[in-house]
Each structure stands twice: as structure tokens, then as C-alpha cells.
């Protein structure tokens, strides 16, 4: 292992020597940088500032991406801005990126783009438009139109010309941090493209094991399953939304049939860096429903075997690449940067005009002009920005503090990200939180893990902000946006609202409270300004997965217990297999699984129906409503109406037996009453004769097992059911016929109701 590694390192060193920028220089490499993630995961912060400008270890994220692109030999970058495009463009114009030699940054602005797919389509259209305008120009010059028109057209032409994609390009989003060398990946991509024109994309992946307990990667994204051909490195299968509850993934049989070998990975991390051929753009245009780069585009290409486009992977080993997708990855990538995995993009290297910072012992990064009290304890792996003041007896560890912050005395800051110009008064406690620019925390305020305070929020004295809450000056948008909705907010209106709130905050609290009198917005203590956002629907469960705070212990134990159970199940299955002594073919095994599953499901379903029914009885819910509820249960458990009928009947009988009774006749009476009351419910599921038989069978089963008290009354209750028109005579007769050939023990009830059946038979014969 050691020797191997060394050889690899030596080879890498040799490669570094031979690696020549001239190779890349022949055709200037281009990149499309999407300065918008098209998600809402960083709300509420992204309502006021675009994600790419959020500071990551005191440097706006986009700088990491641009610095890497420049170092990787990219000559031209198109920055695609949508949400807060003005802020992004302003920032870039004032930065040094526009004045770099051999590296041009151009911005494309568009407001009606809601996904990565749209963005690429727009770029493609402009590429095509270029050709059109070139033709037009020719025409114009031929027909000798007015000079002025010519001019405008030329200007048009020039504008469009600047967005020309003329070869392979790197597709990346503005929140990616990497230090990998593109040379090899690019070369591989080009060679493949030469041999096979359908190899349109190379995806960069990296090894990273997902946590076995939480089923998510260390970056907080879902566990990713990939099938890769080990020889050609072709990507064959990509699934990031696997159903963990079942613990299975489904591969198309054709995959196994067509490829001699497949390696299935769950320990790879998608870096979201793609090397694409120009065809990718046209693919997006052809498939206008492609929105998401992975969910639609990659999966679409993998499934679509008509065009035969192929995606390949390139795995990086020693270098680093990660995308910031959620708060957890923000936390993890920050820590990776502090631990220097992203070298040379680390705080003490001035890779993009960041302030001079010195690295001291134990991973402490300190900028200049920090005022720190002697008694303050600044722990390891901490970054402290320029001009920050730290009061006495404050403790700071594993945190990033921005520029110009004022931290009082006896403050505790642990694993937190504090941006610029934040004021934290004495005695505050912050654990694993994100605090944006200009926040003021009054004395004694406490932030529980996972809290996010957006810009300029004020937290009142001794106020405790509950865990995982998000606080912003802007109100939560009342309409819950779908996943596809972007973080686009109208820029101007946002700032207007913002300033107005500020004004009121300065005056007094009274106006503020009247404004926020709505029920779901608790105050932030005395003098607090801002709204606590309610957690989105279904978010509570997921919140801990994506927050900056580490996953709490109890969650972990809970999850690992659940996992142990799963494993027991699995091992049980295995033992069952091995004891049977022979290999069962795959199809059988899967069927067995299905049965198991459905059995489980039906038990749950029955319980749910029973609970619903009992509640209905207690609360006098209308029959129609109960039917609705049971129907929805039936849909969610994927059950037939026979199952429903069985379950409803079961719960009715259960109720009857639970009602206090002294004798068998009283029980019969109770049953009759309940059946009369709820016959409508039962009937709504008795569409066909099969369902009626199911009820009889169910009843029989109950009498034998769970409710033996009914067994002497079987015939009588059967009669009641017949009387109430719940059971038709056909059903009863069929049941009797079916039982004809059964064992003696099974025939107990048939025999008991023999008289009744006899009577029914005669009646039907008479009718005939």
C-alpha cells in the first residue's frame, strides 16, 4: 500500500513536471458557471443575497470557483446570473476577476430562468442566433440598407458573439470548491470523443463514504448509487433518491445483459463538475422538459437508448472537489478549507484579494488588527477576520468569525459561522449556528444548534432561539414554493421592504409588534427584530439532516437502532435461505420479499383503519368522512377494496366485543346495533361478491383466533348480516361451496350455519 502510494505520488510529481499549459492553450477552454443553485435550501439568507456571494470562510463562494477555473486553465467563463443578478454582476465588476490577464469573465443576465436546464437552453439559443445574425448581416450588406440599421445589427452581433461556445466546456455551479487539475480529465474526455461521438459528458466523481446510519453523505446529500463500467468508466446508472426504507435499488435487467461487468458504488460523491461537449446544449434544447442537471438530464440520457449518448466518469483521488448544496455541506466544506484540503484555496493564501491572514499553531487563522482580550480563549481551527474585537473570558472554538465583529465578554461560540459586522453582547451562547451580516445579539441571548439568523436580525435580551429555527427580517413567503422554484426575489421590492422594516425597528418595538401580530410569528425577546420562520411542511424530520449542527446523539442512536432492526430482518432472511438448503431463483426471492412486505403493510393498514373507525365512533364523525379517510388510507397502502372491507368489518367486530356485555345474547345485540349504525360504511366497500366472501372469511378467522367469543354466535351474526343486506345469499353459498372440500377443522362454522345455508338454498331454488 505504502509503496503503491509512493509510486503514485512520484508518478504524479512526474506528471506535474511534464504537464504543460500549452496543451490546454491550443483551444481556449470555456466554462459555464451557474451563479444560481435554483433551489431554496439556503433560505432565508438567499432572499437577500445570492448564494454564490455568501461568504465561505470569509470569502464569497464564487471566488473559490473562479480561482479554481483560472488555475485549471479555463480561458473564458460565462457567469450565468438569475436571482439577484445585479448583486452578482456588481460584485464581479468590482472584483479583480474582470482585470485578469488570460482569463475573461463575462456575465449573462436573465430573470425568467427557473432552472439549470433553462439557462443552458438560453445559451444554446444565443449560439444559434449567432449564425442567424451572421446570415442577416450578409443580407443587409447585399441589400444596402441604411447604415444605422447596419450598426445596430453589428452591435447585436457583437453582443451575441461574446457568448459563443465553441468547444468542450466545463459546466459548474458557482458554489463549488475544488483544487483538482483538469488536464487529465479533459484529455480523457477528448480522446473518448474522438473515438465515440456519443460520449458527450464526463462527470467528476470522488470517493466519499456515506454514513451507514443516516444514509447520507458527509456533505448532507442523499446517498448516491452509481453503476459504472469498471473498464470504460462509463456511467450506467445514477440514483440519488433511493428509497432507504426498503433498502433495495432496482437495476434494469438490460444493464446486466449488455455490459460484461458493472461495478455498483455507493461510496462515490458527485462533485457537480462536468466536462461537456457542445452537444449537451442542443440536448437540453431538444428535451425542453429537462430542468435539473442530474435528475432530468443525466437520468434522461441514461434511460434514453435511442440516441445512445453516453456519460463517463472521472474519479479524482488526491485533489478536492465538493459542492455546497445545503447548510451541512456549508459547514463541512468550511471545515475542509480550514483543514487545508483545498490548498491553495485556504485563508492564508491570498487567492482572490482576500485579506492577509496568518496561520498560527493548531490551525488558528488570524487576520490583522484583531483586538483580543487576554483572558479570551480562542481554540483550534478558528478563523478570525480583520478588525474583530473579542472581549474577556469569551471562548471560541471551531468557528469562523468575519470582519469587523464585536464580541463581548463571557461569550461562548462553538462551531459557528459568524459573518461580517456582527455584534454579540456579553454572555451570549452560540452553538453550531450561522449568523449573517449585521446581526445584533443582545446580552444573554442563546442560539440553539442549527439556528440561522439572516441579515440584520436583532435578538432580544436573554432570548433563547429554539433549535433549527430560521430568523429573517423578511416574512416567510406564504405560498410554499415547489422544489423547482428558485431563490429569485424581486430585487428592488426586497430592499424596499427591508429598509422599511429597519426604520420601524429603530423607532420602537410597538409598530413592529403590530406588524407581526400574526399568530405564527413569536417575538424575538425585548428589542428583537425579525420573524422566526415556521419550518416548512415535512421539514421537521429533515431539518437535522441539512443543518449546520452535528446530528444530535439521540437521533443517531434512534437511527442506528432502526438500522439494527433492519439488519436483523436481513439476517433472518439469510438464515431462512440457508436452512432451505437450496438456492432459490431470484424471482422467487423477490416475490417472497413482496409477500413479506405486503403482509407487514396489511397489518399496519388494519391497525390504521381500526384507529380511524374507533375515532369515528368516539367523535361521531359522519360516515361519509370515515369513508374518505379509509379511502385515503387504502390509496397510501395500496390495498384493494376487499382489504378495506375486511379491515372495516374487523374493526366493527372488535368494537362490538369491547363494548361491555354480560352474556352471549347481549354481545349479539351489540353487534347488531353496531352493524346497523355503520352498515353504510361497510357497504361502500362491498362492490362485488368477492368482498363479501372476504368478510365472511375474516369473520371466520376472528372467531378462530382473536375473538373466540363470537364462535358460538357465528351463524346468528351471519344471519344478521344477511338481514341487513350486507351479505347476499350468493356470497354465503359460495363460501359454503368453497369450504366443501376443506378439512374437518375448517368446517366448524359451515356446519354451525348449516341450517341457515340450507334455508338459503331452498329459498333460491324456490325463486328459480
Amino acid at each position, binding site marked *: 500500500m505504502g509503496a503503491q502510494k509512493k509510486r503514485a505520488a512520484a508518478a504524479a510529481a512526474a506528471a506535474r513536471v511534464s504537464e504543460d499549459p500549452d496543451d490546454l492553450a491550443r483551444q481556449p477552454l470555456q466554462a459555464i458557471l451557474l451563479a444560481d443553485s435554483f433551489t431554496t435550501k439556503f433560505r432565508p439568507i438567499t432572499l437577500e443575497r445570492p448564494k454564490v456571494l455568501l461568504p465561505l470562510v470569509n470569502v464569497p463562494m464564487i471566488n473559490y470557483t473562479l480561482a479554481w477555473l483560472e488555475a485549471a486553465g479555463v480561458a473564458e467563463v460565462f457567469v450565468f446570473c438569475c436571482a439577484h443578478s445585479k448583486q452578482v454582476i456588481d460584485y464581479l465588476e468590482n472584483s479583480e476577476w474582470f482585470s485578469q490577464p488570460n482569463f475573461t469573465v463575462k456575465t449573462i443576465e436573465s430573470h425568467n430562468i427557473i432552472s439549470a436546464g433553462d439557462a443552458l437552453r438560453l445559451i444554446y439559443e444565443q449560439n444559434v442566433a449567432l449564425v442567424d445574425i451572421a446570415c442577416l448581416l450578409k443580407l443587409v450588406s447585399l441589400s444596402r440598407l441604411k447604415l444605422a440599421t447596419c450598426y445596430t445589427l453589428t452591435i447585436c452581433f457583437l453582443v451575441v458573439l461574446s457568448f459563443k461556445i465553441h468547444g468542450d466546456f466545463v459546466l459548474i455551479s458557482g458554489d463549488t470548491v475544488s483544487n483538482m487539475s483538469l488536464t487529465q480529465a479533459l484529455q480523457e474526455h477528448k480522446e473518448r470523443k474522438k473515438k465515440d461521438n456519443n460520449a458527450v459528458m464526463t462527470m467528476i466523481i470522488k470517493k466519499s463514504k456515506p454514513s451507514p446510519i443516516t444514509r447520507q453523505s458527509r456533505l448532507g446529500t442523499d446517498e448516491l448509487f452509481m453503476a459504472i463500467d469498471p473498464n470504460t468508466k462509463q456511467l450506467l446508472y445514477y440514483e440519488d433518491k433511493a428509497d432507504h426504507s426498503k433498502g433495495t435499488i432496482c437495476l434494469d435487467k438490460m444493464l446486466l445483459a449488455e455490459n460484461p461487468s458493472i461495478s455498483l458504488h455507493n461510496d462515490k460523491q458527485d462533485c457537480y463538475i462536468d466536462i461537456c461537449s457542445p452537444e449537451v446544449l442542443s440536448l437540453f434544447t431538444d428535451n425542453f422538459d429537462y430542468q435539473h442537471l442530474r435528475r432530468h438530464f443525466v437520468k434522461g440520457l441514461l434511460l434514453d437508448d435511442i440516441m445512445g449518448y453516453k456519460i463517463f466518469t472521472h474519479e479524482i483521488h488526491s485533489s478536492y472537489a465538493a459542492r455546497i448544496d445545503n447548510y451541512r455541506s456549508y459547514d463541512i466544506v468550511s471545515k*475542509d478549507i480550514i483543514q487545508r484540503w483545498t490548498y491553495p484555496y485556504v485563508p492564508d493564501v491570498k487567492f482572490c484579494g482576500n485579506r492577509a491572514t496568518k496561520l498560527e499553531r493548531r490551525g488558528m487563522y488570524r487576520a490583522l488588527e484583531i483586538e483580543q482580550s487576554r483572558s479570551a480563549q480562542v481554540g483550534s481551527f478558528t478563523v478570525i477576520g480583520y478588525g474583530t474585537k473579542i472581549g474577556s473570558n469569551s471562548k471560541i472554538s471551531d468557528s469562523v468569525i468575519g470582519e469587523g465583529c464585536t464580541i463581548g465578554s463571557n461569550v461562548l461560540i462553538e462551531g459557528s459561522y459568524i459573518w461580517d459586522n456582527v455584534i454579540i453582547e456579553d454572555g451570549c451562547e452560540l452553538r453550531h449556528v450561522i449568523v449573517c451580516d449585521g446581526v445584533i445579539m443582545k446580552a444573554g441571548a442563546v442560539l440553539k444548534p442549527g439556528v440561522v439568523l439572516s441579515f440584520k436580525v436583532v435578538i432580544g435580551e436573554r432570548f433563547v432561539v429554539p433549535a433549527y429555527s430560521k430568523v429573517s427580517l423578511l416574512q416567510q413567503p406564504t405560498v410554499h414554493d415547489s422544489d423547482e422554484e428558485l431563490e429569485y426575489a424581486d430585487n428592488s421590492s426586497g430592499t424596499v421592504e427591508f429598509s422599511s422594516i429597519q426604520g420601524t425597528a429603530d423607532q420602537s418595538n410597538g409598530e413592529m409588534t403590530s406588524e407581526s401580530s400574526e399568530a405564527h410569528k413569536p417575538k424575538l425577546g425585548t428589542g428583537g427584530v425579525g420573524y422566526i420562520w415556521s419550518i416548512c411542511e415535512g421539514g421537521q424530520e429533515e431539518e437535522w439532516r441539512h443543518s449546520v449542527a452535528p446530528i444530535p446523539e439521540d437521533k443517531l442512536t434512534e437511527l442506528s437502532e432502526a438500522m439494527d432492526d433492519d439488519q436483523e430482518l436481513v439476517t433472518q432472511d439469510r438464515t431462512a435461505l440457508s436452512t432451505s438448503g437450496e438456492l432459490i431463483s431470484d424471482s422467487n426471492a423477490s416475490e417472497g420479499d413482496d409477500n413479506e412486505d405486503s403482509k407487514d403493510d396489511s397489518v399496519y393498514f388494519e391497525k390504521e383503519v381500526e384507529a380511524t373507525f374507533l375515532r369515528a365512533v368516539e367523535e361521531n364523525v359522519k360516515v361519509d368522512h370515515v369513508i374518505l379517510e379509509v379511502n385515503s388510507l387504502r390509496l397510501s397502502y395500496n390495498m384493494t377494496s376487499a382489504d378495506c372491507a375486511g379491515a372495516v368489518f374487523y374493526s366493527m367486530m372488535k368494537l362490538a366485543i369491547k363494548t361491555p356485555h354480560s352474556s352471549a345474547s347481549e354481545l349479539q345485540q351489540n353487534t347488531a346495533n353496531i352493524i346497523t349504525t355503520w352498515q353504510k360504511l361497510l357497504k361502500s366497500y362491498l362492490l362485488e361478491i368477492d368482498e363479501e366472501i372476504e368478510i365472511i372469511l375474516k369473520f371466520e378467522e376472528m372467531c378462530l383466533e382473536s375473538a373466540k367469543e363470537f364462535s358460538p354466535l357465528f351463524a346468528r351474526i351471519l344471519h344478521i348480516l344477511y338481514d341487513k343486506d350486507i351479505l347476499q345469499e350468493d356470497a354465503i353459498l359460495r363460501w359454503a361451496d368453497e369450504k366443501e372440500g376443506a378439512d374437518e377443522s375448517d368446517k366448524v362454522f359451515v356446519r354451525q350455519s348449516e341450517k341457515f345455508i340450507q334455508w338459503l338454498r331452498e329459498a333460491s331454488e324456490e325463486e328459480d
Partner: protein
Amino acid sequence: MPDTQVLVNDFLNKLKKRKIEGSQATARQTAELLRSVISQQRVPYTNQAGALIDAVKAVGEQLIAANPVELAVGNIVRRVLHIIREEDLSLTTAAIGGLNLSAVSDDENDDDRDGDSTLSAAAVAAAARSTLRPPSLQTLLEDTPVSAAVPQTSSSGGDSEGKTADKSSRSRKLKHDVIEAVNELIQDIVTCHEQIAEQAVEHIHQNEVILTLGSSRTVLEFLFAAKEKKRSFRVFVAEGAPRYQGHLLAKELVARGLQTTLITDSAVFAMISRVNMVIVGAHAVMANGGVIAPVGMNLVALAAQKHAVPFVVLAGSHKLCPLYPHNPEVLLNELRSPSELLDFGEFSDCMDFGSGSGSPLLHVVNPAFDYVPPKLVSLFITDTGGHNPSYMYRLIADYYSADDLVVQRRATAGN
């Protein structure tokens, strides 16, 4: 001016992004950049030296701040500043001498200095130093009064403007001389390997065993020079983890027909008893004779001391740094990416911050340099010959002017 600004920015970028590796390349490029800054700088009639010094300082400050770890940048900036001061001084003294002699033309300066006794001793010393010849005992003894006199003379350079006729020619002359001297400096930097290598035969003897660590171009040339002079000897190369540049060195040595043995860094102590001399390169040599060298060097030096094996450091004069090392392990070090040590993917589960306390239990530290204290170094071989560690500060006093040692701090205070 815009031309130089572009050049400066370009170079700053390279420095900031750690795109230039090796102190020789850095030193040469710094000198070339400063040369173009000087040649583009417009010189006023009065106090030309002051204007040049300010221009160089302004650029130099940026360069030093761009990569504080690469000491060669600061060294070259100070060397150039020193050159300007010296040239100014020699011109002034020549002018004063010219008043007395009234017939000496500037072009004959060099001849005059050697022969003319009317010139002050200070001017002789300055001339000797500016040509970067090995310093004689005389210049060393006179060093202190001269450096004290420098600020006065540079201001007096402005005072002596009574000679209006000479002025324009003098200002052109100063710039010209400075550029000449900087060219010489660049030449020195380029040829330092050869000058060091020339001394190889004096140090490497027949059938000796030499140990080295990592890869250094100076060491490579040094060994080749000895080989070319028909010396037969063996070389042990410690591979120099984690970058394993020793492997490359071994490859090149073998290509030139040298008997080479490659060992791990940890085997150095086991092998040192069979070694006659340790010859290594350095990243920088500090004023106290301490050495900043690739990581692992301190270990080799300690092993060498234990077995009384001479520990020889090869360093071009551009690596000579006039600063004293305070807290050298941290402040003069570069912590590189941990990925040189281990594969991130293999250890990704050790670095899962999401669970537990939120801070990882595994930290990987990858310093680029070691500090070797002067007492462990037996000999320095520079392009001006072999020196003791205790002699370094004198060498530094020759190359640098005392005023420039704090160039950085003064410049930032000015801002």
C-alpha cells in the same frame, strides 16, 4: 508605467496562487520585474535615488505580502534597494572627488576607484560590495560606518545640486548603473548553481558516501560537477516524503551514471553511520545561520550531528535572508494540502463532522519546511565560497543595507 503595473499584477498573481516553485525561479523573476520597474520609473532632478527606492519599495511591499513564506522575494527586493543606495553613494563620492580632481569622467569610475587614493575609503568599500565580490576583511571592518552613512549621503545626494551641469547626466547615469548592477545580480542568480558546483571537487573526495534528502537543483549540479571531475562516490537519497522528490533526483543521478541508493526518510538514522557527508539544499538561510529547508531536514541534521558527519548546506546568495527566525516552525512555514499524505476518499469517514461533537478527531498536518538551527550546520557553500553558520550575519551585512531590513514594516506603517 501601465506596462509595469501589468507585469507587477501578473507576478503578484503568480506568487499569490503559488504558481512559482523554487526560490531560484522566484528570485530571478523578482529581479527581472524590479529591473523593469526601475527602467520605467521616471526620475526627478533631485533625489533620484530616493525616487527609485520609493518605487522599488512600493512594489516590493506588495510582492512580499503576496507570499510571505517565499523569502527569496524579500531578499531580492532588499538587494535591489541596496544596489540603488550603493550606486548613489558611489556616484556622490565620485562627484565630490570629481570636484577635487575636476577631470575625472564618470565612465572611468572603475579604474579610478582602484587607483585613486583621493576617493574615500567608503566609496571603495561600496564599489567592492556592489560588484558582489567575496568580501575582504577590510570591507567587513568598515561595514558599520558605511551603513550608518548611507541615509545621510542619500539625502546629501539631493543637496549637492550645485552642480547643475552634471545633473541630467548624473540622473541618467544613476539609473543606468543601477540597471547594470541589477543585471549583474540576475546573472549571479542564474549562474549560482555553476558557481556553487565549481567548488564541488574541494568537498567531495574519492570513494565517499554522500547523503541527501529530497531534490534540489543545486545539489544535483554539485554532484554532477564532482562526477565530471572523475570523482567516484556513492549517493544515498532519502526520498523526501510526502512529495517524494527524492525519486526524481535518484532518477536523474542514475541517468548521469552515479551510483545511487534510495532510502526512506525514516532509514536515515540507520544509514548515517556509513555516510561521509550530508549535502542538502535549502529554502532559505536566516541571518543567524539557521536554515529553512524541506521537511525532514532537521531529522537528518540531528542524525548527522550524532554521528559527527559534516552537514553541508548549499545555498545561492539569493537565499540569504537578513531576517532572524522568530517562531520559524509556524511563521516561515507553509502548510500544504493534507491530500499529499493520504487519500481523502479513504479517510472520508474519519472526517465526518456531521456526527459527534462537530469537530473531527483526525487532523492531518503537512508542513512544507523544517527549521534547522545553526548549531547543526557544519558548512554553508554559497556562490561566494564556503562559510561558517556564525559568519552568515556578516555576509548579510555585505549584501543588504541595514535600512532595508524592515522594508515591509515601514511600508505598511506608511499606508
